[in-house]
């Protein structure tokens, strides 16, 4: 039931299109977004086998410009933004002074030298405020450009083939995590080979007034190839199979990038200070107290966010994300478990070893610890 106290969620440029398609809409981080159009499992499978079309216009876009933009981001983020070549992108994070993750981000260095930082919808305002404060006096300006962009993603093995018919850009030259100013169906777009599904795919930043046309042209171009619109439910199960963290589940203020197994994004060898450096340098040296691991359930009951992980009957960790995996046909989960339990479970792992389990509403359901990701796309896709 809508809470009469909360403001109406913001509508993306594509909201009416989703409603016309009969989508189940949901309030996600203050935005009215499609959860699913029909069966979320069918949408998930379409992305794995053909292609899916996503509206991601709720994501926050922040533009950092000025002569000091690269240096300001080097100070504000854990990555080295100034080392990104124009037209390339990096996955990175913004951390608090204590090393806790404020958000995970993709930073695009644009052709002109400015940077586009893409933040999670739920954190966009916080990230904008932090970047503004951290850029102060460093020759850079931070502008929230979220309202100026619609973001459409096409993901799946047939994405490149479908998109190729709508753009003059030679997609075979667009590498993973590269971006180019392009024309898509005659409309200006920033075309990036990025995604959150574990498949090949593209994200298209377009003007809101062009979004409906671009969506429709992609829909028409992909129809024969099995392209379907896909909602946030499929996006979540796709990213979980691909072992990608979600802020609020695997990432948060009480987690460092090292806890999440993503210490590689922290560039301790970059020149100059950055927010969180001292705490993260300490953390990098210390032995890990907990590890983010993959679990595959041995029963059909599904581990969910917040459930306890058990080792020999004793709690040793907590599930951060869990879902039935359409691709594996079994329940999967990511969980933080104590380093000790992770080591024992890792060496003891075997089909008939039931010492590792998840407390699923009072019953210990055995699980197997597996390396992440759960799903890796076949070579050549």
């Amino acid at each position, binding site marked *: *039931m809508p809470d009469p106290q909360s403001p109406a969620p913001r509508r993306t440029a594509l909201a009416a299109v989703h409603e016309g398609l009969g989508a189940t809409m949901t309030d996600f981080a203050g935005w009215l977004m499609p959860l699913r159009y029909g069966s*979320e*499992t069918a949408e998930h499978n379409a992305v794995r086998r053909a292609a899916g079309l996503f509206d991601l216009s709720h994501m926050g876009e922040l533009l950092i410009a000025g002569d000091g933009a690269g240096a300001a981001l080097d100070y504000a983020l854990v990555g080295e933004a100034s080392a990104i070549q124009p037209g390339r992108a990096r996955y990175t994070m913004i951390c608090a002074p204590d090393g806790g993750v404020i958000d995970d981000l993709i930073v695009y260095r644009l052709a002109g030298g400015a940077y586009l930082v893409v933040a999670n919808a739920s954190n966009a305002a916080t990230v904008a405020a932090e970047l503004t404060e951290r850029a102060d006096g460093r020759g850079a300006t931070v502008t929230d450009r979220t309202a100026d962009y619609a973001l459409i993603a096409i993901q799946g093995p047939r994405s490149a083939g479908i998109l190729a018919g709508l753009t003059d850009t030679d997609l075979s030259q667009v590498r993973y995590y590269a971006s180019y100013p392009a024309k898509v169906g005659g409309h200006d777009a920033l075309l990036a080979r990025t995604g959150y599904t574990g498949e090949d795919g593209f994200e298209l930043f377009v003007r809101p007034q062009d979004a409906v046309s671009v969506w429709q042209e992609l829909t028409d171009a992909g129809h024969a190839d099995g392209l379907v619109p896909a909602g946030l*439910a499929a996006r979540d199960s796709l990213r979980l199979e691909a072992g990608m963290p979600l802020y609020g589940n695997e990432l948060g203020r009480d987690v460092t990038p090292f806890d999440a197994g993503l210490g590689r994004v922290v560039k301790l060898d970059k020149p100059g200070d950055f927010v969180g450096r001292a705490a993260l340098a300490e953390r990098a040296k210390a032995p890990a107290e907990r590890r983010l691991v993959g679990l595959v359930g041995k029963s*059909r*009951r599904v581990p*969910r966010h917040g459930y306890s992980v058990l080792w020999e009957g004793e709690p040793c960790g907590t599930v951060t994300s869990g*879902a039935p995996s359409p691709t594996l046909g079994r329940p999967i989960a990511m969980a933080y478990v104590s380093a000790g339990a992770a080591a024992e479970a890792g060496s003891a792992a075997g089909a008939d070893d039931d010492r590792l389990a998840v407390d699923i*509403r009072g019953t210990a359901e055995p699980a197997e610890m597996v390396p992440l990701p759960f799903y890796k796309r076949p070579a050549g896709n």
Partner: protein
Amino acid sequence: MSVPEELYYTAEHEWVAISDATARVGITDYAQRALGDVVYVTAPSPGARVTAGDPCGEVESTKSVSDIYCPADGEVTEVNPEIDEDPGLVNSDPYGAGWLFKIKLDSGDQVPPGLLSAAEYNALTAEQE
């Protein structure tokens, strides 16, 4: 949303079809839409005594898990054998092939107390929309 006239309902979104002192039980179209794709159902076992209002099973969907609340007092006589193989029947045909289990009613041919009519259930879901 479909709410067949001839069925009875619970506030927890189960439907009940009564004939020959037996209730056939499932979850409503409203419930299956709210849950999303159903992947697994735990139903009470044949022979089990069940009590109205008590949780007696679970429906797992992609996004969440929900209890099944028993709509009436009685004894479970049968569980739909198709559901284990094909839980998607709960989505595709919630009032037909997607039924979950049957109860021999303590109330016999009388409608068990506390159930809602289709009109009452419609009013309830309209409030929750």
